[in-house]
């Protein structure tokens, strides 16, 4: 805990708290259970994708196919449910496996064949995205089973179900990254891949696994959003790629690898969610949202740079 106070996660958390404070003071509608519930549900979809993205970024890679994986998974699962009447529990399992398979293709191309991560995931994203249109011809898939709606729309007590998924995944992945050899190897590969190989780490395997995980979380999040929208929309996930990277960066993850935490990413996603919500509540034109988010990223990166310069001087 003592460590946490000095970290960049903490400074982002303070920034988030200040933002919430400003919102609470300037509007009467922000700090209500209803509004907080809306924000939490909204960020949970993107946060789950961003967790996978963070794991990839930690190894020094990037996954630009998360949006298309989410969309393709949403569509395929919708088809399975409407045409073959697969039940909700099985569909969760199927979507996870599907995501792992789609991510596995990225992982093999990047890890084994040593292709550039940016290009591979960009191209695979195009392929998966194109397949969505081939399958759906642009029409949504409707008439999903009623019981399925619980995943994205349900509440347990006061808490929306997707938020619970987000919290569970956050805790589990944060624990794995911090306390298992697999987690520490991810940081090692991103910190110095040559040294990692010389220390006996199979870099190509670690690379494979992180893209599989990223695919899995993207796919699962796509399923949750499908449930939330009550339809297999062809556009699901298409706007998730950059926000998933942005949330990680705001939360302190380094694009060059080896640095960053899941907690930071969740804070980053929350910051973006509160910002988007605030823009609506303050009656600012929603066109400003992207301008402000972009500025926040620049400010976060500059603050981080200043902190690094200061720590070098010490």
């Amino acid at each position, binding site marked *: 805990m003592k*460590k946490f106070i000095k970290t960049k996660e903490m400074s982002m958390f303070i920034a988030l708290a200040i933002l919430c404070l400003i919102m609470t003071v300037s509007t009467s509608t922000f700090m209500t259970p209803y509004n907080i519930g809306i924000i939490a549900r909204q960020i949970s979809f993107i946060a789950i994708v961003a967790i996978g993205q963070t794991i990839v970024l930690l190894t020094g890679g990037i996954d630009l196919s998360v949006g298309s994986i989410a969309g393709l998974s949403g569509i395929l699962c919708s088809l399975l449910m409407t045409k073959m009447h697969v039940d909700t529990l099985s569909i969760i399992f199927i979507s996870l496996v599907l995501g792992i398979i789609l991510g596995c293709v990225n992982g093999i191309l990047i890890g084994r064949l040593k292709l550039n991560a940016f290009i591979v995931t960009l191209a695979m994203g195009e392929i998966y995205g194109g397949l969505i249109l081939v399958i759906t011809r642009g029409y949504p898939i409707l008439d999903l089973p009623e019981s399925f709606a619980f995943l994205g729309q349900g509440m347990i007590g006061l808490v929306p179900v997707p938020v619970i998924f987000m919290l569970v995944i956050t805790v589990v992945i944060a624990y794995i990254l911090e*306390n*298992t*050899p*697999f987690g*520490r*190897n991810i*940081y*090692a590969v991103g*910190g*110095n891949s*040559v*040294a*990692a*190989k*010389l*220390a*006996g*780490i*199979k870099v190509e395997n670690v690379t494979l696994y992180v893209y599989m995980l990223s695919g899995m979380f993207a796919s699962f999040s796509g399923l949750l959003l499908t449930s939330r929208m009550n339809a297999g929309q062809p556009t699901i996930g298409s706007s998730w790629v950059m926000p998933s990277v942005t949330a990680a960066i705001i939360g302190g993850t380094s694009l060059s690898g*080896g*640095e960053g935490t899941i907690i930071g990413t969740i804070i980053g996603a929350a910051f973006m969610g509160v910002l988007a919500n605030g823009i609506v509540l303050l009656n600012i034109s929603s066109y400003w949202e992207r301008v402000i988010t972009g500025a926040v990223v620049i400010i976060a990166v500059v603050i981080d740079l200043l902190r690094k310069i200061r720590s070098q001087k010490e």
Partner: protein
Amino acid sequence: MKSSYIFEVKNITKEFPGVRALDNVTLYIRPGEIHSIIGENGAGKSTLMNIIYGILQPTSGELFFNGEKITIDSPKKAQKLGIGFMPQELNLVPQLSVEENILLGHYPLRRKVFLDKKEQRRIVSDLLARIDPHIKADTIVRDLSAAHKQLVQLARAILFDTKILILDEPTSSLTSDEIEHLFDIIESFRKAGNSVIYISHKLNEVQRLSDTITVLRDGHNVATLDPKTATVEDMISNMIGRKAEYKNEKRDYSYKDKKVVLSVKDFSRKKEFQKINFDLYEGEILGIAGLVGSGRTELAKAIYGYTVPDSGTLLVEGKKTINKHPQEAIKKYLAYVPEERRQEGIFPILTVTENIALPSLNKFCKYQIINKKSLRKVIDEYISKLKIKVQSQDEKIAHLSGGNQQKAILSRWLLSGSRILILDEPTRGIDVNAKAEIHDLLRTLAASGLSIIVISSEMEEILSLSDRIIVMNEGEIKGELLASSASQENILKLAFKH
């Protein structure tokens, strides 16, 4: 007053934090002469060339060009004066053509904006005609042979009206035919009245080519020799000086009754090393001496499985094997500590604890979950046992001094239980105290039964640590010595052998 020298270096001293790389060095270059500079690794040759070419600034001292005092504050200034430099490590852009590489940064222009392609072609064909008519101006550099790449670099160095050409180890990657061709070019360059500063470890070439030889040792110039009278032996004895011969307490070492733990048989890897055979005995420190570029690092990496040899076998504790990945080597209790500590050894942004524990994390795991408490306890033991100076276990390793980083890396392999350590330049860039501590540690480890291979370009380190020494040059083992019969002189003779 016109000087009879084209270039003079007078009393140049260069200090880096903690070291004096050059101390009062003086050098006179005549027009139309080939002036060789020789010395051991670290004698100050590169520093001196970097000062002449304007990459480094001297702490004190003066430079004269044609008798006129000058300062050279950038490579651009050096080029303007007519100084060309061909570095040992080529810096060509592989994706660009020969022509573009030669003219890089100095494209002739029309109306100050547009590339003058005709003029470009004219300049480059003139140059290539002088150097090697077989090289075509529009070939992409990536597709050239190593020798032709080098000639392109040479063409770039003499692009300007070059009067002084600096060549740093130009023949290290050339075949004998290619070397002859290069010598012809150098000779015709000289005949035109220009001067060459020639740096090389190949003393036979130096003797054949030079008009004057300057010997550097530990940043001093110790001798100026005339190649007509000086022999290769003279050069070597000047390079190592009349320093007190190294005392080695291991005079009565014998491996006769010892167990072989590692045996390298017929190891070859194209362009790196050929037909390497040697044994490592239990509890022994085996030194591998040789010049930079003699294939020692490449050999170590192939034994360790970072690369895979083209042919040959490895016997670890009598078992025939070949390592295809470092992980396999580590399982057989091998360890490799790389020469490039920052690039290949440490994880700079991770903590000291993680840097030490990474390969051994599984030992501290139950159901794949790390027991951090017991890990921290063990790391603390290593920190105090090896006297690693840290504020806490969670300090980033990048904040540590080189010596402490190296101790952490040694801890890494002791923790993982390694029985055979391969150390590549273990004390490079490490201060005197930490160096002595690391040497003591290695002796203690060997005495406790670990087997250690030390690759070092530092003669004193090799001589004071090793029980036995093998000497490599040009990818081959040139000889083997027992520490009791080894001296700087006979090691260097082997290292320069062809």
